[in-house]
C-alpha cells in the first residue's frame, strides 16, 4: 500500500467519522459542528477526485454558507422547545436501519460493477471547447452545453428566496431581515468585517473571471461575495436591506434576465435558444457570469439572513 492510498483511506475514515458524528451527536450544536468539518473534509475528497471546481463550490456553499445557516438556526432553536422530544420506536429505527444498510450495500455493489471502460462525455466536451474560446470544460458544460439547467437554476434560487420572504409576518412585509446588530467597536467581528471584505471581493471577482479557463466560476465567486456581505451585516457595519427596495429587486432579477436575453438573442444570431454566435461566445459567457455573480451573491446572502423580521424604519 502506498502512502497516497494510506492517506486516502485515512481521509475516507475521517469523512465517515464526521458523518456518523453528525447523525449520532446529542446536541444540535455538536452535530452541526461535525457537519461543517464533514464539509471541509469532503472538499478534500473532491480535490482527490480531480474536480477542483466542485471542491470550491462544496467548501464555499456546502460547508460555509450552509454551516452559517444551520448554526444560526440552532442558536435560535436552542433548548426552548415547548414539548418533549419523542424518539421513534425501536421497531421504527430498526426498519430504517435495515433499509439504509440495504441501500448502502446496493450502492456499493453498483460502484463495483459499473462498466469498464466507463462511458464518458469528456472527449465531446473537450472537442467543443476551442469553438467556445474557453479553457475550463466545466464552465463550458454549465454555460453552453447545459445552459438551460444553469439559467433555470438561477430562477430556482430566486424562487427559494421569494418563498423565504413569503414566510414573513404580514406586518413586516417589505421590511428588513434579521435583527439590528449593534456595532461592538472593540470587537473582533467588526475588525474582520473591515479588513476582510476588500480582499474577499477581489477574490470573488477573480474567481469568476478565472473560471473561464481554470477552476472557478460564478457560483464560487458569488458565494465569496455573499459571505463578505454577510460578515459586514453580522458585524453591524451595514444594515440588511429592505426587501421592497426597488434596486434590490432589480439587482436580484438582473442576472437571470440578462442570461435569458442573451439566450433569446441567440435565436436570431446563432440559430437556437441559448446558442452563442461563434466569435462572441467567450465575451457573452463572461458577461453572463459577471451579471449572474452579482445577482447570485445578493440571492445567496438574502437566503442566509432570512425573511423580514422588522419594519423598514431607519
Amino acid at each position, binding site marked *: 500500500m502506498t502512502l497516497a492510498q494510506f492517506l*486516502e*483511506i485515512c481521509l*475516507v475514515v475521517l*469523512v*465517515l467519522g464526521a458523518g*456518523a458524528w*453528525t*447523525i449520532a451527536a446529542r446536541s*444540535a450544536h455538536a*452535530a*452541526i459542528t461535525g*457537519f461543517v468539518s*464533514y464539509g471541509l473534509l469532503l472538499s478534500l*475528497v473532491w480535490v*482527490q*477526485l*480531480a*474536480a477542483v*471546481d466542485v471542491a470550491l*463550490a*462544496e467548501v464555499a*456553499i*456546502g460547508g460555509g454558507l*450552509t454551516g452559517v*445557516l*444551520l448554526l444560526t438556526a440552532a442558536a435560535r432553536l436552542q433548548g*426552548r*422547545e*415547548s414539548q418533549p*422530544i419523542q424518539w*421513534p420506536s425501536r421497531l421504527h*429505527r430498526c426498519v*430504517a*436501519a435495515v*433499509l*439504509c444498510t440495504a441501500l*448502502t450495500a446496493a*450502492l*456499493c455493489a453498483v*460502484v463495483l460493477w*459499473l462498466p469498464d471502460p*466507463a462511458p*464518458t*462525455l*469528456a472527449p465531446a*466536451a473537450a472537442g467543443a471547447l476551442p469553438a467556445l474560446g474557453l479553457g475550463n*470544460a466545466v464552465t*463550458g*458544460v454549465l454555460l453552453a452545453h*447545459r445552459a438551460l*439547467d444553469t439559467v433555470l*437554476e438561477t430562477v430556482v*434560487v430566486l424562487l427559494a428566496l421569494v418563498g*423565504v420572504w413569503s*414566510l414573513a409576518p404580514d406586518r413586516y412585509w417589505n421590511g428588513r431581515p434579521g435583527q439590528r446588530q449593534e456595532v461592538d467597536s472593540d470587537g473582533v467581528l467588526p475588525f474582520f468585517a473591515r479588513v476582510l471584505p476588500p480582499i474577499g471581493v477581489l477574490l470573488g471577482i477573480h474567481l469568476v473571471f478565472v473560471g473561464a479557463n481554470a477552476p472557478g466560476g460564478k*457560483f464560487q465567486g458569488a458565494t465569496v461575495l455573499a459571505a463578505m456581505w454577510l460578515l459586514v451585516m453580522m458585524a453591524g457595519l451595514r444594515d440588511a436591506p429592505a426587501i421592497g427596495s426597488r434596486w434590490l429587486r432589480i439587482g436580484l432579477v438582473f442576472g437571470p434576465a440578462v442570461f435569458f436575453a442573451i439566450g433569446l438573442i441567440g435565436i436570431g444570431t446563432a440559430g437556437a435558444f441559448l446558442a452563442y454566435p461563434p466569435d462572441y461566445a467567450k465575451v457573452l459567457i463572461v458577461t453572463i457570469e459577471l451579471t449572474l455573480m452579482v445577482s447570485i451573491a445578493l440571492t445567496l446572502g438574502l*437566503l*442566509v439572513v*432570512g*425573511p423580514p423580521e422588522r419594519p423598514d424604519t431607519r
Partner: protein
Amino acid sequence: MSSTTLFGMCAAALVGLGLYGLLIHPQTLRRIVAFNLLGGGVFLMFGVVARRGAAAGMASDPVPQALVITGVVVAFSATALAIALLLRLFADSGDASLRSPPHDGVAADRTHV
C-alpha cells in the same frame, strides 16, 4: 481497490447515514442536517462517476461535475427554505419537531379567502 472505488463506497455509506438520520431524527433541524449529509453522499457518487470518465486529457468528466455544482446550489436553497419554515413554525408554535398530522382534521378551521 482503486481510490475511485474507495470513494464510491464512502459515498454509499454517506447516503445510508444521511437517509437514516432523515428518517429517524425527531427534531426537524437534525433532519435537515441529515438531508445535507445525504445530498453530499449523492454528489460524491456523481464525483466517482466523473472520475471514472477521465479521458481526452481531462482528469475527470466535466458533465457530472457541472451537475454537482448545480445540485450544490439547489441543495443550499432547499436548506435555506426549510430553515426559514422551521424558524417561523418555532416562532409561532414553540414546537421544532413535526408531529404526526391529525387524521380527522381537528386543527382549527380557518376560513380562506
